[in-house]
């Protein structure tokens, strides 16, 4: 095996509990996003566009869809002769086997995989954020500063700091201290869960962490704080582009609405210099009929629109019948919407059928909560689903 300068470890084992019915049968990184993609397309495409060709994907929870989606990685040019993508589920070995206990443990259990490539650096990513980032710039800065570990951060509004791990730095961006979800934050530089480590150093820390029975086996809670205690050279890398954690129903819905805002305020999915790739479903073109009204929406191929679609995102293969009205909503693949249906501020799971005259998301317009219909559900004729409900738990 030829050696690689950088090996990327993509953490994709999370259940995404807060996404409720959306992750009932699939891992969070496999959740569809943006009419055409799944969440994992963003980090994988970033790897491709950053020139990183050796990626280990750590899977654990409901891996079937994710595994078959990643395949041999050719969708992201990761079917390369040396390296490429390797799906790494937990495994049994001579010394036994166990589930990944935490993010650090997942990487620890795959030390052998990383050692195959004898890298100088390991890039650790998570598979559930929406952003475009050139990791090669971060690695470049890591080298320039002579860092031992770098953490990507972005400025967040001070009132939101309580939700993040924040980094306290000096003028040279060296990390002096660290607060996890602080009540009184001393910095508004929030960690994005993206790390670059010098591999020999990380290897030592992972081994020490594995030997510590008290550890949570987590990068944020254990590895980084221990490195700080040991006064290692830890630096931040500042990122200023669009970044969205779509880990809750509300933020997932909001992430879609962001896509519909004016250009420049969200992610530009149409940028040919930084293409987000996906496993293209092969579908015929979309058809917008005489009776349709479509405005401020993103619609994928294989759809047939005969009704009204406003401020909404439609994945491939959906049908919207006459006199149906879809507003402020997200329709995942292959949803069928019958005549006279009203869908308001809702997320409709794959292969669901909404029969005629059903009303989804009823209630006063101003305070509507997002309604969620799970995968493969059937909402019957004229049925009314109150706003904020989640069907299919």
């Amino acid at each position, binding site marked *: 095996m030829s050696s690689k300068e950088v090996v990327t470890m993509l953490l994709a084992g999370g259940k995404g509990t807060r996404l409720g019915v959306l992750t009932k049968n699939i891992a969070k990184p496999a959740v569809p996003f943006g009419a055409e993609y799944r969440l994992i397309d963003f980090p994988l495409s970033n790897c491709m566009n950053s020139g990183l060709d050796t990626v280990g994907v750590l899977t654990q929870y409901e891996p079937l869809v994710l595994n078959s989606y990643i395949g041999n990685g050719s969708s992201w040019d990761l079917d390369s002769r040396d390296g490429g993508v390797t799906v790494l589920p937990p495994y049994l070995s001579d010394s036994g086997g166990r589930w990944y206990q935490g993010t650090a443990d997942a990487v620890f259990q795959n030390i052998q995989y990383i050692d195959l490539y004898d890298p100088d650096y390991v890039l650790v990513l998570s598979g559930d954020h929406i952003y475009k980032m050139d990791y090669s710039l971060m690695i470049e800065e890591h080298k320039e500063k002579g860092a031992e570990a770098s953490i990507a951060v972005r400025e967040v509004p001070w009132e939101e700091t309580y939700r993040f791990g924040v980094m306290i730095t000096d003028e040279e961006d060296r990390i002096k201290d660290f607060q996890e979800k602080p009540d009184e934050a001393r910095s508004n530089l929030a960690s994005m869960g993206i790390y670059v480590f010098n591999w020999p150093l990380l290897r030592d820390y992972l081994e020490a962490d594995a030997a510590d029975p008290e550890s949570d086996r987590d990068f944020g809670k254990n590895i980084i704080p221990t490195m700080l205690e040991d006064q290692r050279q830890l630096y931040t890398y500042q990122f200023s582009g669009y970044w969205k954690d779509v880990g809750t129903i509300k933020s997932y819905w909001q992430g879609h609405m962001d896509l519909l805002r004016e250009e420049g305020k969200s992610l530009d999915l*149409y940028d040919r210099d930084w293409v*987000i790739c*996906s496993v293209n479903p092969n579908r*015929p073109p979309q058809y917008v*009929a*005489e009776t349709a009204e479509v405005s401020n929406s993103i*619609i*994928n191929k294989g759809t047939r629109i005969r009704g009204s679609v406003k401020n909404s995102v439609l994945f491939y293969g959906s049908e919207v019948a006459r006199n149906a009205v879809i507003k402020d909503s997200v329709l995942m693949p292959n949803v069928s919407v019958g005549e006279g249906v009203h869908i308001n501020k809702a997320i409709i799971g794959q292969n669901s059928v909404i029969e005629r005259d059903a009303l989804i998301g009823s209630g006063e317009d101003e305070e509507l909560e997002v309604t969620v219909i799970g995968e493969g559900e059937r909402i019957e004729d004229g049925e009314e689903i109150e706003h904020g409900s989640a069907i299919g738990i």
Partner: protein
Amino acid sequence: MDNVMGIINNNPQGISLKEITGHRSLASAPVFSRYRLIDFPLSNMVNSGISNVGILLESRFRSLLDHIGPGKPWGLDTKRDGLFLLPPAHIYDNSQLYKGDMENFYTNMDYLHRSRQEYVIVDYPFVICNIDYRDVFSYHLETGADITVVYKDLETLHRDSHYTTIMTDSEDRVVDMKINPDTRRNTRISLKKYVMKKDLLLEMIDETVSKGQWDFEKNGIASRLSQYDVRGYPFHDYVAIIGSLSEFYRRNMELLQPEIFSELLEEQGPIYTKPKDEAATQYTPSSRVKNVLAANGCHIAGKVENSVLFRGVKVGENTTIKNSIIMQKSQIKENVRLENVILDKNVRVSPDKELRGDSSFPLIVEKGSTI
């Protein structure tokens, strides 16, 4: 179908679609919002279980090679069998003039010999349909014919298009065959799908070439109806023959009819094409769209009616497009009026322009033009 191989014959047979094929082969002409002509025979073959496909290249095949690559979208990038691109004779010896498609068969006889299949289907990309060749092949075996040709009875033949007509007797035996005859009375036309034993094809190549005859359909089949038992297989579903610019326009527009759309693209096997990693199409708050087919990656801010948009088309605000075909990545700025227009790839129309063709004679704008 493991015993059948496919040959896609790119002989344009004098079809004049030069406005669209000036810089590309007929087989790679864009069609139906997101496809190229060659997608149809290739998809039909793989959907029917054929795993060995040879494509006889003509001239100007750069865009065709770019589209097909190693055949991955069709699952033909395999170690066993797969896709074979067969270059024409004249690139080996440029002192030679192009004589006809038989020469291409002749140049690539090695490929035919080497292939392990016993039967072959010869197909042409400009006759589009969604067909299961398994039915044709079992009919071929049942009748014990030497050659089976797929045909359809059309309602009318267009003056400016290109047809091969056939006449059959009561047992579906082909008794007459004419390549693009001047009279348009006989509306039973060959869909240019020919099934035969590979050995028979090899014999046909040898017999025609050794007599200085160079046309597969004329010399290989039409003039040998007494020598071979040639049978017709009737096909009843939708067929589009892209034999002229007006046919190209008409057929693309026809796909806006939901029944035709379903018959061609949904009810039978899927039609595969090269994927492009485009985001989904975005409609802005000001967009007004009626009766439109659109591929991915478009950005629509204006009014579009009865039109077919290919990938990555941009339509500016206050622009109106009617009855038009807009090919890949063309950009139409603000306040533009387009009616009965075909824009080839990468055309840019500046603000406030007005272009109008006639429904029977669309205005076509060449690839890469700026207006």
